[in-house]
């Protein structure tokens, strides 16, 4: 399955970033004009030297005098720069206030907890039986404001999906939040944007923006417990996963495995990415389960040293967790 890796800042796919492109262009234009003015003045100064007689230099004995136009120029320059910066500051403030005020009346609440180096995603609901826990992936309905509460279990991370919103840090001991109202159906990629240790580079997340009915369908599916294994190989895998190392850290709803140290695996095979960095595929699953330390050195998931038949069984079972 291929993913559209869409991580551009100009993605413009949510209300909160609607103003970004316009503001950026305003800034770029004003700054470009200022730059052109500086370069033009520079070139004029370089080119002017040909008119030697007008120079106020020590050779002419006039080095204590200045061209009177320069005094006017200084004041004008100061005024232009000042006005330009004031205008930019006002534009920025206006955009900022309107983005902040848009962050209201959220209809959906998600808690994202940052860990080294994965995202723990929990969909909150007033009725606890409707809560969903997943990892490294969000599904959002288009047009609905979503408030994402941000917490951290260890160090400072930063939640950043460029096409949907600016970044917000996840700081242990502080509760921050971010509101996103996606406007375009699609798949968007984000990454942790605050250095958080060895595998900071491989802490990506995927946001899947669906139509509202598709989103509800996804949610209903997430509420289901893991299916019982049907083939003998998957059953062997189920036995291993729920009684051996995997269950020390992972949870699979509907099975004895219920630890919350690592990501929830209930619907692992239906996610788009694995280990917050790789596309989900059978090959990647084999590689990750067999030896996570060679793919993401330093990750908290240990290399267990599975026997080949154990590996086949485990992967066969994990693939049933759609």
């Amino acid at each position, binding site marked *: 399955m291929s993913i559209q890796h869409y991580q551009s800042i100009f993605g413009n796919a949510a209300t909160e970033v609607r103003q970004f492109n316009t503001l950026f262009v305003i800034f770029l234009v004003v700054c470009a004009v200022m730059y052109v003015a500086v370069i033009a003045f520079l070139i004029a100064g370089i080119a002017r030297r040909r008119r030697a007689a007008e120079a106020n230099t020590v050779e002419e004995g006039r080095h204590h005098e200045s061209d009177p136009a320069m005094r006017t120029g200084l004041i004008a320059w100061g005024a232009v720069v000042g006005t330009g910066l004031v205008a930019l500051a006002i534009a920025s403030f206006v955009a900022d206030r309107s983005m902040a005020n848009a962050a209201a009346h959220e209809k959906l609440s998600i808690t994202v907890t940052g860990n080294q180096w994965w995202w723990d995603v929990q969909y909150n609901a007033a009725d606890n039986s409707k809560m969903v826990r997943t990892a490294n992936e969000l599904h959002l309905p288009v047009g609905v404001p979503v408030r994402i509460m941000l917490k951290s279990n260890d160090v400072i991370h930063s939640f950043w999906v460029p096409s949907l919103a600016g970044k917000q840090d996840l700081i*242990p001991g502080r509760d921050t939040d971010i509101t996103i109202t996606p406007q375009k159906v699609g798949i968007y990629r984000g990454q942790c944007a605050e250095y958080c240790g060895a595998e900071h580079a491989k802490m990506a997340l995927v946001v899947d923006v669906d139509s509202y009915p598709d989103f509800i369908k996804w949610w209903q599916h997430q509420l289901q417990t893991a299916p019982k294994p049907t083939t003998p190989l998957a059953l062997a895998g189920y036995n291993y996963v729920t009684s*051996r*190392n995997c269950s*020390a850290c992972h949870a699979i709803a509907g099975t004895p495995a219920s630890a919350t140290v690592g990501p929830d695996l209930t619907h692992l095979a239906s996610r788009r990415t694995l280990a917050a960095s790789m596309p989900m595929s059978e090959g990647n699953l084999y590689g990750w389960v067999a030896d996570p*330390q060679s793919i993401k050195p*330093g990750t908290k998931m*240990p*290399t267990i*040293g599975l026997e080949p038949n154990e590996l086949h069984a485990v992967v066969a079972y994990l693939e049933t967790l759609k």
Partner: protein
Amino acid sequence: MSSRFRASLALLAVATLALAACDREERHSRAKPMGETVPAGTSPDTIWPGGTVPQTLDPRAKLYDNNAPAISQGQSLYSQMNCGGCHSHGGGGMGPALMDDEWRYGGRIDQIATSIAEGRPNGMPSWRSKLTEDQIWQLAAYVRSMSGQPSKDAVNSRADAMSATAPQTLTPRETVQTSDTAEQ
């Protein structure tokens, strides 16, 4: 000494130093899976059959015993695997205290690793099927730090958690004594 000789001598010294890179900080993330290699039933010294022949130290001991990343990882595992549920932060509760000088089943790192892997009578579960050898040895390294055994350079002073014990870097080193299991 000519200045060139002095320069090459300095270079040699630096090169030698570089080769003797500090193992205390080496993060062994590519620890090979070692399978079931912690010997079963390793007994503490007092009940060694045939006399008090000291057992040779497992070669893995020096990879973990004074290794800062291992001790730190063990600290995380200690809270994640809920060791504190029985042992608290080393003060004991349902389980024996880990920060004192009494070790029922031996206080060497390989003996502690065996205790974790095998489980022990009266309630210590066996973790062999749940944790890899690497993780067990990391936990053992951390457990030793609770009684101040490793070098103070290798331990974390505290976790980012509520303060429950004195900082590990200021914990005095307890002598390792075996306690008689019959008296428990």
